[in-house]
């Protein structure tokens, strides 16, 4: 199966059978992948049709008609967000991106994670405005049509909920598919008006240092943000992955604050109050702050630190026996580009550098891949991200020792999957 490769090529570069990442560039390496139980189910579903692959019925008759807006194949219908919302009150909850079912770096808009505090407002764009007021020379109001006429910029950016991966603080490792554990993060191309253009038009007063951003959902979610960051790189986004922002992601406009925790990327943006102090809203005091063992809480922890995950193989998938596999995953950092991802198959005793797939962009998902010759023995898989500032993703015991277990938000420790001899994969603390 790897005829052109020499024995040297297949010599492990780290314990447990990790191979050199250059193997991807040479080609000719046939890789097995762990398969999800659900995708096996989809194949079985196709079986009753008893189609002959050499002469299936669909090569003999006109296919389905054109469609105004395409949808995924019916055989992929299991790929969906897992909804974890409350029943009462109904609008307060989350839905998770199924990271284990996705490839590349862009999250399909319909699978972008959701965190709503009081449901998704049904906003008529003709009745929506963006208001800028406070410490400005001239308070202004913009219609959505106005905003569509401004110069725009696009960036591929992840958005991660500050509460993503919070099950990592639990005493016992949670056993769920990776998306249901870490899927409050997604990555899109966001296009819109640099906020600095609109703030400059209003004329920001020299005394201003904060901006309170408010959404038009029920509850008028609001957060305070430092003016300097908003002037630097914030975007008033009108488009997500080429089409207008989806309702659950902030239609008609969403504030995009690159690399900062999800709640600062205010959806359904309607008001920017330029001020000289934070308002100290509920969501930046009682929530989205992290209680430490000292009794003090971390506040205004805006930046999402570097993190990585192995999405395949991962819990819920099954190995097919000893063979060469591709370890696949994603890494991201709110502080800039991912500089390096290392993977380990022996629980962190030894590490091999993974291949980073281009493009590698700041505050964006980076896809990593690493060839692995699994010998069928039990193994402990880990990935460890380093970003361009030199920050290294911490081991769990280090993070817990520093932060305790009551912080809830900003869990970014190294994740460990145990591969059993029978091919099952589970989440462990190791």
């Amino acid at each position, binding site marked *: 199966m790897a005829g052109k490769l020499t024995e040297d090529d297949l010599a492990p570069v780290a314990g447990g059978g990790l191979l050199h990442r250059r193997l991807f560039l040479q080609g000719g390496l046939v890789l097995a992948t762990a398969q999800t139980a659900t995708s096996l189910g989809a194949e079985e579903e196709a079986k009753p049709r008893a189609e002959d692959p050499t002469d299936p019925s669909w090569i003999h008759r006109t296919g389905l008609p054109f469609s105004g807006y395409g949808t995924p194949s019916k055989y992929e219908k299991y790929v969906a967000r897992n909804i974890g919302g*409350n*029943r*009462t*009150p*109904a*609008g307060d909850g989350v839905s998770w991106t199924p990271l284990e079912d996705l490839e590349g770096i862009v999250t399909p808009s319909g699978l972008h994670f959701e965190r709503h*505090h*009081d449901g998704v407002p049904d906003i008529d764009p003709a009745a929506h405005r963006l*208001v*800028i*007021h406070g410490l400005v020379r*001239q*308070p*202004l*109001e*913009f*219609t959505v049509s*106005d905003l569509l006429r*401004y*110069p725009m910029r*696009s*960036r*591929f950016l992840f958005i991660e909920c500050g509460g993503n991966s919070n099950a990592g603080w639990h005493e016992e490792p949670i056993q769920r598919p990776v998306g249901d554990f870490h899927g409050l993060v997604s990555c899109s191309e966001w296009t819109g008006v*640099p906020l*600095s*253009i*609109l703030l400059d*038009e209003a004329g920001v007063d020299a005394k201003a240092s904060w901006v*309170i951003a408010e959404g038009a959902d*029920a*509850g*008028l979610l*609001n957060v305070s943000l*430092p003016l300097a960051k908003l*002037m*630097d*790189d914030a*975007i008033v986004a009108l488009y997500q992955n080429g089409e207008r922002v989806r309702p659950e992601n902030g239609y008609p406009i969403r504030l995009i604050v690159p690399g900062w925790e999800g709640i600062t990327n205010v959806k359904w943006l309607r*008001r920017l*109050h330029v*001020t000289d*102090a934070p*308002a*100290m*809203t*509920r969501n930046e*005091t*009682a929530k989205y702050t992290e*209680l430490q063992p000292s*009794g*003090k*809480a*971390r*506040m*205004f922890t*805006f*930046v999402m630190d570097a993190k990585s995950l192995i999405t395949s193989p991962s819990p819920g998938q099954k190995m097919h026996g000893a063979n060469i596999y591709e370890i696949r995953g994603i890494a991201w950092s709110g502080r800039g580009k991912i500089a390096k991802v290392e993977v380990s198959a022996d629980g962190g005793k030894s590490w091999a550098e993974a291949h980073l797939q281009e493009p590698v*962009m*700041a505050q964006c998902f980076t896809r990593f891949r690493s060839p692995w010759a699994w010998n069928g023995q039990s193994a402990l898989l880990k990935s460890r991200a380093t970003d361009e500032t030199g920050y290294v993703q911490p081991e769990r015991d280090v993070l817990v020792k520093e932060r305790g277990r*009551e912080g809830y938000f900003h869990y970014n420790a190294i994740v460990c999957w145990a591969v059993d001899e029978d091919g099952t994969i589970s989440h462990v603390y190791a």
Partner: protein
Amino acid sequence: MSMLRRAAAAIFVPVVATSAIAADTDVKAPRLGTPLSTGEIAKWDRTIFADGRGLPPGKGAAKDGRVIYEQKCADCHGLRGEGGTAEELVSEPKPPSGDYPSKAIGSYWPFAPTIFDFVRRSMPPAAAGTLTANETYALTAYLLAANGVIGEGDEMNAKTLAAVHMPNRDGFIWIDVKP
């Protein structure tokens, strides 16, 4: 280079070069914002600051707040604020610690005007923004009294609410921005 490739290259360049919008000093933009008058801004502005700026006229006390709480809040937050499908609201009036990691109002919330602001804009979820200023002051008074932060008979208004000292006022460390 084919037309197609040239177009692809042209599209790709901005993608890799847009990490610093602020450095993009040559942006020429229309000026389409419509000026707002002071009266118009007042209809939009619902900000209430930690120091009480923005609190509206009105007043309320715990005994009236209790009635509203039992009607509109207790189903989710529990009859005595102990929590239910929604978070707990009542704790002892002392800061949290490793042994007492409570994030309820009395132990965690650093500013009393925040309670008024959040209740007025967000609660109850099925009818957000429908409580009057007096009702909101009364509910805020009830929650503060239930947490032992103020007395049962203390009236809350713009002045007295801003003056309430929360037990965990100094319990926070700013991380990514400095005070």
